């Protein structure tokens, strides 16, 4: 056989081998793990405007606004996690996670792997008692098990008419529980980034609960805020009572700290 003939024979056998390889390969999984997804973001108005705080005040909120610069979603379980099967190593998933009633587990919250995020080009202003859910800009992420979230409060909030450049504002009236006859305290509490920075670094509230979901495709993340947590440790007796038309505008460390409590923010995922 000539050199050329032998050469073509070899190429034929090569072609046959190649054809076999692609056909004979295993059919399971033709790509790497996971995929990229789009996460729509929706802010849900708060359900409760009337509540009793941990310090024993009955509060009725008339207005509450918060400015936010970003959300991040993680696979690490939040500190308020209940039963769980142990992690195996950094970056690995848990399985059989089931949320019993939330309880505290003080210690280290480990965010784990960042699975998704929405970084607003300009910090948004969220009205906690708006008439309906507010569509925010889309975020991006990857598939995985979503368990917790981070809320980032901006260092330069926008100059909204109510917010007036503060990170958060809450207005309402408070009455000591059991003293219905007393004069309510009309309050307007404000907090700036400097107040927030006393409790958290870079405005990041870590470890917020995201109801655990195995995310496999695009979907929507809904966020809601519990103003009851914001005001839980506010001692209203220290606030000068204003009037309904002109409530006392004041800062309060209980409020600034309340804004940084992970239990004030709740996230869920839906398709």
């Amino acid at each position: 056989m000539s050199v050329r003939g032998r050469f073509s024979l070899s190429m034929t056998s090569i072609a046959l081998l190649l054809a076999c390889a692609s056909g004979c390969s295993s059919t399971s999984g033709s790509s790497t793990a996971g995929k990229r997804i789009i996460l729509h973001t929706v802010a849900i108005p708060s359900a409760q405007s009337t509540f009793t705080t941990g310090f024993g005040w009955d509060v009725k909120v008339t207005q509450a606004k918060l400015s936010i610069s970003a959300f991040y979603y993680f696979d690490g379980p939040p500190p308020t996690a209940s039963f769980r099967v142990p992690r195996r190593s950094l970056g690995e998933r848990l399985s059989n996670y089931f949320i019993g009633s939330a309880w505290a587990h003080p210690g280290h919250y480990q965010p784990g792997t960042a699975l998704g995020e929405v970084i607003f080009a300009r910090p948004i202003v969220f009205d906690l008692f708006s008439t309906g859910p507010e569509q925010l800009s889309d975020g991006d992420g990857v598939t995985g098990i979503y368990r917790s979230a981070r809320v980032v409060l901006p260092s330069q909030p926008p100059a909204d008419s109510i917010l007036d450049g503060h990170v958060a504002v809450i207005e309402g009236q408070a009455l000591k529980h059991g003293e219905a006859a007393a004069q309510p305290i009309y309050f307007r509490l404000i907090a700036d980034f400097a107040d927030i920075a006393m409790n958290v670094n870079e405005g990041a509230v870590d470890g917020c609960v995201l109801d655990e979901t195995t995310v496999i495709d695009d979907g929507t993340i809904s966020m809601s805020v519990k103003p009851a947590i914001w005001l839980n440790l506010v001692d209203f007796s220290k606030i000068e009572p204003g009037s309904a038309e002109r409530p006392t505008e004041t800062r309060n460390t209980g409020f600034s700290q309340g804004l940084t409590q992970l239990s004030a923010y709740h996230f869920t995922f839906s398709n």
Partner: protein
Amino acid sequence: MPSVSRFSCHRSPREADLRLTATQRRVRTVLASLVLLLGVPKVARAEVTAPVAREQPPPVWPHEAPSTHDVLVPVVLVLDAGGHVQSAEIEASVDPKVDAAAIAAARQWRFNPALKDGSPVAAKVRAVVRFAARPPAATAAVKVEQPVQSNSPVTAPGTPGVAAVAASEATTITVLGVRNAPPPRSASEIVQDKRVLTAAPHRTASDLLLTVPGIALTQHSGEGAAHQIFFRGFDAVHGQDLEIWAGGVPVNDVSNIHSQGYADLNFLPAEVVKQIRSAPGTYDPRQGDFSVAGTLWLDLGYGEPGVTARASLGQFGSRRYFMAYHPKGWSDATFAAFELYSTDGFGPARAAQRTSAIGQTELQLGTAKVRILASTYAGSFNSAGVLRLSDIESGVIDRYGSYDQNQGGDSARSQLAFELTQGDDQGRWSLSPYVVLRSMRLRQNFTGYLAMPTSGSASEVAAADKASEQGNSEQQTNDASTLGMTGCYRRTLGLFSAADSFEAGIFARYDRIEQAQKKLSVATSEVTLDEVDAKINATNVAGYVDFALHPIRRLTLRGGLRLDGLAYSTEDDGGQGQGQRRSAQGAHLGTKATVDVALTRSVHALASYGDGFRSPQARSLQAGETAPFTSVQSYEAGIRHQTRALRATASVFRTTLSDDLAFNQVTARNERTPPTRRTGVSAEMSAQPNSWFTAAASITYTRAEFTNTDGGYNSGDLLPYAPQVVIRTDVAFTPILGRALNRPITSHFGFGQTAIARRPLPYGEMGHDYSLIDANASVRLREVELGLSAFNLLDLNWYDGEYTYASNFEQGKAPSLVPQRHVTVGAPRTVLATFTLYL
């Protein structure tokens, strides 16, 4: 004479031909010899025995294009009483260069001296030096002719001249040139020789690796750093899974802080690599640590006789000066070379310089052969680092820009190696000690200002986060001294056939390493965090036995065992280490077996199996831990066709690992993963049908997947990063364009093409495919050569490396934490003009 590759035990003729020819010593030639005494009248005949050739190394084709037919050069030799060739003269000239090569070859011949009355005497003989058409297997034919009836007085001082009558049998014995490589252990084990290595232009010896079928390279740390190597579905990082030897000295750095097995080949000028033998898989007991995907042996040699002085000037301020010397008449293993290179780089932060010098010689000392190799190298380079793909696509940063221009590093290597070989094909032993001094510094910034996940106490985590605020510019330094030795003994066995052989060998390597990693501030380069400060003593000792048996005709069985012992002792004073010394040891026994069936004279079918290991980074080991070896099993089956003009191979292969490492997008480091399996097909061919055309082509397809579900990886998912399809073509034409000034005008037109396709990336994505062409053209007349090379001839906008992980290069802004694609940008078209003087 071909130079010796790593173990000289393997410098034996092709086994199939052993049956045809005896060794050179057994070549029996009857030569006419004449001893004439001046003025002695005819007397009764004395008893004269003609000289018998004992060793006849074949001649080496001169560097110019060899002829397409055999060339015979008649010579007259004068032998002394010891059988050495005292002088050799051309009887009829063919061509000055060929003449010189014939003389050089003949001078090395050894004879059993002529005997007169039982005593050795000097003699004069006529012989023919034959150059065969195919250079590597040059043959030497000695044709015996009529005894020389010369009237001129001849030597033999003091002894009466005798008209000797020799029984002149014109026996032509063909002595086949010795092969440079041992018989292949798998269908896809091949040798890329000088013609393929020089077909396309190559910048460094590291670039030469592209000619090996299945290899793809990327560069993410600057032009002087080691490439990241992908081979048959393996992300071998910088050499973690590819064992590389050059000149009999290991190139991989043990436990290098940047990457296990870091192999920096920039110390070799591309011109001094004579051939690359590639052994994919782990089928050979000579393959040891790092040979997870395979082993490459680079043989060094330079054959252009005299002085070569070369200057190249090119775009982007590229300048290269190369000088080499190779003495005429010596084998190409003896040479010295020097290189100086600098470039401004094709974009900001890409300048590089290097300088290296290397010398090697091969000497005959009595019956032993000695090779000495010495080299030294230093290089420094700047690196632009990686860019976020979204930033390039949205125009935030220029393609050739950089987030941190302080990246780069330097590297140095000095080495000294000896190799002593003694023996013949019945029994040969070889010993090769070496010393290597290495030093490396890298500075890179892959993640910007992102706080990286760290373990440790709250204060340690806080300190790490604080350091990240000033930027994650990591400085890694690694200084290592290596002392090692390889040795082997080989002999024929004669179990089933005369060609059966047995080889036993040892390998020893001791490394003393000092390494450190510090985080630096991007703005001020001050140290913000001391992460690693370690001293490591690593020892690897191995012994192997290897058999080659020929139980029946056409069937060869090769197999062996290799036992490796590894010991590591680490002391880490930096970061969270407290200075305790901890040590770990382990052993691995590997079985290797190959069945080789000769279907026809030139076609063989092979099936191979081998089990090997991947060693860990010393710092990751706990005290007293049995060094965890990842166990590697390779299987391959294929066919080979090999003749002088053409080599073609095709094979299917599979490699399984008991656990693996993959670049983790969260920690931006290689982390342990579940076990994996790589299955693939490879086909390659290399054709050299005549002296002016060379073509080599290969295509490799591999599918790498996980075989278990754990830690975020599912069984069946692809491993990210290693490209699935790698194609390479090397083509060269070297015609003689004409004649001028009484000499031929030789030329070289060549190109090389590398294409990769289907690079799996995390999250179900695929990286960019590319196909690059490098080309060169040169013309030479006598001592002057002019050339032009172009890399990335079509000026393709391509991405060299692609990685998925999270980074944040904008200080103060809310970072993006979801892993995104990062790329290193490939070089645009670069043209170099070369001027060479051959003196």
